[in-house]
């Protein structure tokens, strides 16, 4: 059963066993506008919690995507190079960015669940 958690920087992380899928939330994609390009990390790269793992660009902005937890990059969503709009159309599904092998599962504890994240987004306005 997959658990989904969220960060204050509007990344989501879906955990299945020791593999996690990472993307940006619907709120993030709305703020960004039409995504035009995604810069993804190399396979095998070690990313650290809270540090830059990818970059997402819209016409008017470029945003860092931070790794919600530390881990090793197992896969990246190559489909995004031809169709970056998937991030806007389906941010939690087909718009995923990368998959990580989880380093330390305890790092998930500090992240928000869906209810907490929704409340956090409400509070931003």
């Amino acid at each position, binding site marked *: 059963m997959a658990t989904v958690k969220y960060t204050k920087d509007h990344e989501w992380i879906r955990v299945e066993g020791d593999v996690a899928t990472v993307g940006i939330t619907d709120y993030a994609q709305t703020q960004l506008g039409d995504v035009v*390009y995604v810069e993804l990390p190399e396979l095998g790269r070690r990313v650290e919690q809270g540090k830059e793992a990818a970059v997402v*660009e819209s016409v008017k*902005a*470029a945003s860092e995507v931070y790794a919600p937890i530390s881990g090793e990059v197992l896969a990246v969503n190559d489909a995004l190079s031809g169709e970056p709009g998937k991030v806007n159309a389906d941010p939690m599904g087909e718009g995923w960015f990368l998959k990580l092998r989880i380093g330390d599962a305890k790092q998930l504890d500090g992240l928000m669940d869906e209810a907490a994240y929704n409340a956090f987004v409400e509070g931003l306005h």
Partner: protein
Amino acid sequence: MRYLPLTDNDRRAMLGAIGADTVEALFRDVPRSVWLERPLDLPRAMGEIEVERALTRLAAKNVPLSSVPSFLGCGVYRHHVPAAVDHLIQRGEFLTSYTPYQPEVSQGTLQSMFEFQTQVALITAMDVANASMYDGATACAEAVMMANRLTRRKKAILAGDLHPHYRETTATYARFGDFTVVERPANPTAEDDLAALVDGETASVVVQNPGVFGHVRDLTALAEACHRGGALLIVVVTEAVSLGLVKPPGEMGADIVAAEGQSLGNAPSFGGPHLGLFAAREKFVRQMPGRLVGETVDADGRRGYVLTLSTREQHIRREKATSNICTNSGLCALAFTIHLALLGEAGFTRLAALNHARAVALADRLAALPGVKVLTDRFFNELTIRLPRPAAAVVETLAGRGLLAGVPASRLWPERRDLADLLILAATELTTEEDIAALAAGLGAVLQ
């Protein structure tokens, strides 16, 4: 004051609307202690008549290139600019417009820059070009930094016949950008084995073709050596007209081209403003510095143009930008593109052939002078000769006799005593038989 439309009545009425007594009241956030209470040490205001008189007097103290036989090159060239170019760039819609950030009211600029980008890509035989940089020297430095980003390495090898100003500019950027440059010594008579210097730390090799002494070389083998070593080949071109006759960098394996565009559309202007041309392979486009214009459609489905890939740039990416550059060389690029539009394929190739023919005539005439040795055998429109004595003094004497004979190597390499006898000369389509004859006679007389 002819440039200030407000009248005293206006000012009074406006102050009334604002609710302030004086204009000075609007400056109340400025600490009183720094208000300037005395007039500055500047001339009083002048009307057009006086301004024109004063500046014409200053201009008259300079010797224009077209007033005497002149053979100066080394990065700035005297070419004919068709009269239409200067008229068109002075249209207020081009001259007084800003960067095209509001594309609906800037299609003139955007379309012209799209055409410019296409022309630059064609003449360099590269995939993509940007909308210009400040000049060739800064374009060279930016090319080196781009290669660093792409290869994740930090060393650039600068060929010995790279123009010293380009080398020095790149070295300055390296010092503060924390990367290194290997500056190969200038050698006008022997070719440097740059391929042998490429190692696992080399990000780029920078060569100039034609080189600063005029040599034209085949860079294919060097390009292959760079690529085998994981490095990029950057080719610098200081004389854009050479691309009409010489094999272009893109056909010899160049990854990035950094060039000077002054030769087309732009006067020498004592060294500025000029324009940097910047072109690269398609796959490198997201690491390119500078503005890029892209094609798109508008809401009615009509073709139009916009600035694009802007997230590379400072106004969005800020400290992570590919460069800090903001302004490009807009009007100079427009002059370039209009001139090249007038020339077209037939005109550009013919212009280049003319330049080469004049330079060959010059070389043959100089070779016949006793004591003079021509050092460049394969060249476009620039060549180097060795005199029997230091060239700087010869040039100075000839200047006093109404001849601008070229650039003495000591001007560019003051620290190299061994190059002091060298003189670098350029010929263009404006160089006449009489010019060459006058130079030969003058040189002959001085060297006796």
